[in-house]
């Protein structure tokens, strides 16, 4: 299978826009393809995918495979696996396949890898090429992020990696970039869909979505009560800053905040410009969800708390004494 060339990105889109993780994958996919002197393609499997083709080209794709006739209207892992399998063995024959470490990506990538008998490294935070073989070298956190592992993958077929959100930088969008949009048939028999969706329940979340928020204020078990969490975090600091609200697993377990706000390895992954961490120790599992933040501010009574190792600014002190004057000053600053 040495005729495998180039990078194929599995694209995700919603409401006519590419998902942020897809832009990030195009960024790294473009770099890897350039280093190999090959093309970077993206596949979009979506009834409305055509709308995203130009965007994908602006962000680095040479070729956009648009598939609008998948048997299910929504993401359906078994049939999507077959679609990708065909692209990998017939149409595109990529050397490298990049998939987001999203819920859909985590469902899709292992199926594809086993189907293709290909190597897969999941949840990567760094990708390089072996200088000699030009094969993938993938870096991923293991043991809940306490250790970083570096892997290479067996040669002779596509090498597959799923990439953690916010781990890669997208390119600047450039509308003058040239590329080709290719309408492609799914070529999947509807009988491949064995798992039938009978219900979808979407949860309403209060406030801005934390995954896309520019500012996130998060609290941990250092906040004593759910009333205090509401007063100081949700209706306090977060409200003044128009920020999303996050919490640690400990805060969720203690009933301080609902599960949909959980940030970390088993929760949401955020990467805001500003992450204000209040009364949280900075456990590695939590940091896995927010270490991509550009600026972390920590407020904690314990000067030895690990969160200060990640923070750019820190105040050692009781949040009840720090937050009210901070809110007052922020209001003043933000009104000018």
């Amino acid at each position: 299978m040495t005729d495998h060339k180039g990078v194929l990105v599995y694209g995700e889109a919603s409401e006519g826009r590419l998902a942020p993780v897809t832009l990030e994958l195009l960024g790294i996919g473009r770099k890897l393809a350039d280093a190999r002197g090959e093309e970077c393609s993206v596949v979009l499997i979506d009834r409305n995918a055509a709308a995203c083709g130009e965007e994908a080209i602006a962000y680095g794709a040479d070729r956009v495979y648009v598939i609008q006739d998948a048997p299910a209207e929504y993401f359906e892992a078994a049939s999507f696996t077959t679609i990708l399998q065909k692209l990998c063995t017939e149409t595109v024959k990529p050397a490298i396949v990049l998939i987001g470490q999203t819920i859909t990506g985590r469902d899709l990538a292992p199926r594809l890898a086993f189907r293709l008998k290909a190597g897969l490294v999941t949840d990567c935070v760094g990708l390089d090429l072996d200088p000699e073989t030009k094969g993938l070298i993938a870096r991923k956190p293991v043991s809940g992020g306490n250790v970083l592992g570096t892997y290479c993958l067996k040669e002779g077929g596509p090498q597959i990696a799923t990439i953690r959100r916010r781990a890669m930088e997208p390119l600047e969008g450039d509308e003058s970039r040239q590329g080709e949009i290719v309408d492609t048939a799914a070529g999947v028999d509807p009988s491949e869909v064995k798992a039938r969706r009978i219900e979808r329940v979407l949860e309403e979340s209060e406030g801005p979505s934390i995954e896309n928020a520019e500012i996130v204020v998060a609290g941990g078990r250092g906040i004593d009560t759910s009333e205090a969490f509401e007063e100081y975090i949700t209706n306090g600091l977060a409200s003044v800053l128009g920020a999303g609200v996050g919490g640690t697993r400990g805060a969720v377990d203690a009933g301080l905040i609902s599960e949909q706000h959980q940030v970390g390895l088993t929760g949401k992954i955020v990467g805001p410009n500003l992450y204000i961490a209040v009364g949280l120790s900075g456990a590695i599992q939590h940091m896995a969800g927010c270490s991509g933040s550009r600026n972390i501010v920590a407020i904690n009574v314990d000067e030895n708390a690990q969160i200060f190792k990640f923070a750019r600014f820190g105040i050692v002190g009781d949040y009840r004494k720090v937050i009210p004057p901070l809110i007052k000053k922020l209001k003043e600053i933000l009104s000018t």
Partner: protein
Amino acid sequence: MNIIACVKQVPYPDTPASAYGVDNEEKQITLPEDVPLVISPFDENGVEAGLQLKDQTGGRLTTISLATRPVDVILRDLKQTLAMGADEAILLDDPAFVGGDSWCTAHSLAKAIQKVGDVDLVLCGLQAADWDAGQVGLGIAEILGLPAATFVTKIEPGEGCVRARCIIENGYDVLELPLPCVLTVASDETLTPRIAPLPGIIKAKKRKIPVWSASDLDADMTMVGASGAKTILKELALPQFEGVCEFITAEELDQAAVMLAERLRAEKII
């Protein structure tokens, strides 16, 4: 319903970061000896899900583990699943398994599932807490050609099918899958593993757990161990913290708070 739950042993997941070390000669993560090995949390949720289904529909639950840790510890944990209510436990152990990756583990487990025979449902944890790969459950499904669902937090038995509640980005889907199928289980408060009752513990202690080797499984030797692996671990490292924190200090905390707000504005962060 004939159910299989696959379980793996991992170092206690809430072990503090400072306890971790790496051995790059052996390509191993090192931990102090007093860090216990436990069943990986999502796998334990899978065992609990299997027991709940067994309670509702009758049938059998078999737990299977592939030895990647000292065998006495795995036997102890497999006996724990018997004490919780599993009917049978099987250990897969062979020197040929050493050095394998997710690809190899899935192939050996798939062979074991075929050897058990007439299986309706395979439950695996979403991912194990040591290598965090999340490949084995879906790998088994692909190898055996079975339908699968991931991120499952609730399972309802039906006529020749199961209904699985699966987490999606902003809520959940309910999927109906025909049996046999594979489900990978995430955490949910309803899947908190039950405490094994004392009589169960006493009974489980006396049980002898069958050990299956690679040849018992009729395993394809090109699919197991280091020679079967599709991924090669090159290096392990402890993460380095980059940031240098600027502590904002003042006589009183409210002054420090004001200074923080000013710093954030000066740096154009707000």
